[in-house]
């Protein structure tokens, strides 16, 4: 039972943390708008479950759609940039610069572009957000093939396409998955923050701002909890696919 042992400490700290949280809130009689007790959040969660679930799912779908669009774009752009020196030299500095700007500030602007009630705005913000880290990592990955490996392929008179498929793309997989881990977190953050600024109703971001405005912080925290669960779920899924896709890699070897 290697799993139980390796997750054991985390579970103890998690449960212990919750217990201390509950205790502190009760002992010092902390007000709900500052920090509600875990049990209060849990009961809010139970009461609001259907609404929360609908909102959470809608937000999650936007985040995943944006992630899919942005990552696909990032992969294609990365392949183009690694293939053509001109594109690389022109686009890479810009991509790196863009990647270090807070793109999320686009969120309010997106409403002006796509209309307040359109779900497209969220998808676009998320896509733009994840595009750059995916592109940059993919370029690094595709260019990580070693000189000797390229010479080996050359000695078989492998075409450019063959080198891409059999050497560069498999070699870029670890880079791609690191990018996807960053991107999946960004996607959810991006989607929720975008929703803070409006957009269709019954979304996590809307729900959180609404409930916070009404001083119903138990509900707001329940939504935050759900968002974390989606985030962890997405991350876990990427880890799972990574393990399946590259059992050979150092990070995965058993």
């Amino acid at each position, binding site marked *: 039972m290697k799993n139980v042992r390796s997750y054991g400490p985390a579970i103890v700290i998690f449960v212990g943390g919750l217990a201390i949280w509950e205790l502190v809130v009760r002992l010092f009689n902390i007000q709900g708008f500052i920090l509600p007790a875990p049990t209060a959040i849990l009961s809010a969660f139970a009461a609001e479950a259907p609404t929360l679930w609908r909102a959470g799912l809608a937000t999650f779908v936007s985040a995943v759609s944006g992630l899919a669009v942005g990552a696909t774009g990032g992969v294609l752009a990365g392949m183009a940039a690694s293939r053509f020196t001109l594109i690389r030299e022109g686009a890479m500095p810009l991509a790196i610069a863009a990647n270090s700007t807070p793109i999320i500030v686009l969120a309010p602007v997106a409403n002006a572009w796509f209309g307040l009630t359109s779900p497209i705005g969220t998808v676009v913000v998320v896509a733009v957000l994840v595009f750059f880290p995916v592109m940059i990592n993919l370029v690094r990955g595709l260019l990580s093939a070693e000189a000797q*490996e390229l*010479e080996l392929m050359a*000695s*078989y*008179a492998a075409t450019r396409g063959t080198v891409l498929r*059999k050497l560069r793309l498999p070699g870029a*997989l670890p880079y791609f998955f690191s990018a996807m881990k960053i991107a999946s977190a960004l996607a959810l953050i991006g989607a929720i923050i975008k929703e803070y600024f409006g957009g269709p109703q019954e979304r996590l971001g809307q729900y959180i701002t609404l409930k916070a405005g009404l001083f119903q912080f138990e509900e707001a925290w329940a939504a935050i909890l759900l968002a974390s669960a989606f985030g962890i779920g997405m991350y876990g899924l990427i880890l799972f696919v990574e393990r399946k896709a590259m059992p*050979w*890699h150092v990070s995965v070897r058993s």
Partner: protein
Amino acid sequence: MTSTISLDNVSMVFGSGIDAVKALESIDLDVQPGEFVSLIGPSGCGKSTMLRVIGDLISPSAGTPQVNGKSPHQARLDRDYGMVFQSATLLDWRTVLENVALPLEIMGIDRPERDAVGRKMLELVQLDGFASHYPWQLSGGMQQRVSIARALSFQPSILLMDEPFGALDEMTRERMQMELLRIWEETETTVLFVTHSIAEAVFLSTRVIVMSPRPGRIVDRIDVDLPQPRGFDTREHQRFFELITRVREALRAIEDEPA
């Protein structure tokens, strides 16, 4: 008969200005079909560079290399070369069998056939039990044997081998030498073989080329007139020791030369 490999006044300079390194200078070499030629010389004398020029991985600064009567470039496109590099260069994400079958896969040979050939090659290097292992599960010497199996898998007419047995223990090394000789005889491959071992060069080759460093030049060519096929007796042959002495003296002469 056209030479399998012919170098006519080939020079190679890396870099320029004061940083320029003359890796090869005025190299003339003719290798006939079916020859087994070893290159020996001190580290940095241009042995790997010579192999890379012949294999069209780099272009010489001057001179004309020819391979099977063609340019090295054409020979590479025709897949005349099987290369074994100084390091094994296996692809991490491929199993041992998939690594061995890589050239066949690139040539468009279908799965059942390339698997069959790959397994036969693995038997040859005595790694048949490791077909579905990954490279990181193998020792350095085993990895190098995989890379040799890979180079042999598509039966190239020329083998360019850069210290292929450097990482092997003495016993494995001798067995691999015998295997290589057997393959060489059976397939009429032409071999250009880089080694640091005088005994290995003499034992394997029909000719030993001795090189000097900076600039890399051929300083001696020694015909190895030991009887074929080579075997255990070869190493006890009087002539074997004479030839080893001959190569050793050629190498020592380089060291004594004023730089």
